[in-house]
């Protein structure tokens, strides 16, 4: 939204200042809405939601599927990005020293999403240009996860980045396949987001983009939480908050289990 010019004409009298500011602001909004319809239209062309906003990790957890559904006002293409919590990671590179493969270099990379999945209604290249894909980080190759240029030249940095992407793809946390967003009729759409069993816990962001003629006309961001609940959460909290006691209990459990095993098998 463009900043209204009228806001600069502030009256010295404080009482009226806020009122007149408001009036000027509203007028500016009205004018800009007339001039550029897009900003107002943006808010309305897309509505999307998830079937659930909390993924609970319980004892039997083996991954989860979340349904994303929504509607657009006009025809167009849909791109969905699911992104996990960001963390710094440490990468290592091996090289051959006297025939043995040894880690010879390491690189810390900040802000790496713990999960990344993409779903589109058409192949991404057909939907939009490379510059738009890069701006909205559509596709893992467009994630800004290259090491800083102070630490590595762009060329070397790209190798680290690709290595990181491959490592995350092997663990299934960066999904290799692009999911499919299917339309029901011309305006209703849906897609399935599948989270593997090893998903990191934390808050995720689900971004839905509505594109027309290669331009993003509207977008919406929905949160998704992945957290441990019940026994799993209690064990995790206990292990982290009272770690010494946890260690003692773990030892006692093992001692008792060993003794029980002896007793049971002696009689059997």
């Amino acid at each position, binding site marked *: 939204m463009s900043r209204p010019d009228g806001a600069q004409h502030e009256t010295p009298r404080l009482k009226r200042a806020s009122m007149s500011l408001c009036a000027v602001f509203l007028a500016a909004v009205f004018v800009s809405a007339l001039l550029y319809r897009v900003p107002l239209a943006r808010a309305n062309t897309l509505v999307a939601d998830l079937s659930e906003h909390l993924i609970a*990790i*319980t*004892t*039997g*957890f*083996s991954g989860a599927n979340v349904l994303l559904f929504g509607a657009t006002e006009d025809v167009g293409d849909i791109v969905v990005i699911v992104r996990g919590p960001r963390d*710094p*990671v*440490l*990468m*290592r*590179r*091996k*090289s051959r020293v006297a*025939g*043995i*493969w*040894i*880690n010879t270099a*390491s690189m*810390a990379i900040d802000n790496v999403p713990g999960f990344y999945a993409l779903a589109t209604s058409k192949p991404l290249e057909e939907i939009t240009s490379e510059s738009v894909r890069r701006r909205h980080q559509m596709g893992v190759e467009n994630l800004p996860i290259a090491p800083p240029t102070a630490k590595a030249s762009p060329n070397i940095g790209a*190798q*680290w980045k*690709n*290595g*990181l992407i*491959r*490592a*995350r793809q*092997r*663990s299934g946390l960066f999904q290799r396949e692009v999911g499919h967003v299917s339309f029901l009729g011309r305006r209703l759409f849906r897609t399935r987001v599948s989270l593997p*069993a*090893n998903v990191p*816990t934390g808050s995720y962001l689900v971004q839905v983009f509505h594109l027309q003629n290669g331009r993003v006309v509207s977008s919406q961001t929905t949160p998704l939480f992945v957290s*441990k609940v019940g*026994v*799993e*959460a209690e*064990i*995790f909290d206990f*292990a*982290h908050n009272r*770690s*010494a006691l*946890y*260690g*003692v*209990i*773990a*030892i006692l*459990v*093992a*001692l008792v*289990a*060993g*003794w*029980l*095993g*002896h007793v049971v*098998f002696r009689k059997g």
Partner: protein
Amino acid sequence: MQIYLPIAEMSVNAFLLLGLGGVIGFLSGLFGVGGGFLMTPMLIFVGVPPVVAVATQANNIIASSVSGVFAHWRRGNVDFKMGWVLLAGGFAGSTVGVGLFSLLRGLGQIDLVINLSYVVFLGTIGALMLVEGTRAMMRRRRKAAPRKLHQHSWMHGLPLKTRFRKSRLYISALVPLGIGFGVGVLSAIMGVGGGFVLIPAMIYMLGMPTAVVIGTSLFQIIFVAANVTFLQAAQNQTVDVVLAMMLLIGSVAGAQVGTRVGSRLQGDWLRLLLGILVVIVCVKLFVDLFTPPVDIYSLGGSL
């Protein structure tokens, strides 16, 4: 049936873990080794993060060792006096070993050192056991006179001579103390109970009877593993009790079966079988050192 592991943050098939625990427990009862040198690689292979695998298998080893010790104790095969002396050395050694571990990790070469020490120690011990086991069996076949329990060497000239009745030994207490120390250092670096190093050392360096060696080694391993479990849980929060429980249900049962089978087998056979097992693991690790990795770039775990 999938089960979610809260500390490892992944889900694994429960029967796979039970089976894995059973096999390791069986070996533990049979040979008296904790089984850590097999368990850790297997868990990592399944996908458990290495730090969690190392810490959790220590917890599991406590259970299988306790189960095994009771069985051996009933047969009178535990030399407690020797066990305590080894343990004293072991505690000192593991403290030094933990310091060394941190130093190597700071240098970024801990993985390599772990792999190399596995190859060197497993290779040496495995080869030694194979040769010795085969030779002993050949001798028996020829119905030759039984060999001497042990040869006298410089070690028998050391002070603090002590009588270990169960082991039928009269040697300097410094020898088992030193062996315990060395094994303590190794077990801290390699993340294992150290049975596979301790047992050959007890047989070949101390000259203890094989039957007593296994029970005594298990006795010592309980305390070393308990120490490791506590330190890992308190410092790194990497002990996964759910994983440990699944493994120890299998391993406690397996240890009992293993002990029974072990008592029917002759000592020479046991040594030969353990030797073969050790050599197989060693060859696998040796080949891994030279095999080009899947990707030269890898995630280095926590910062």
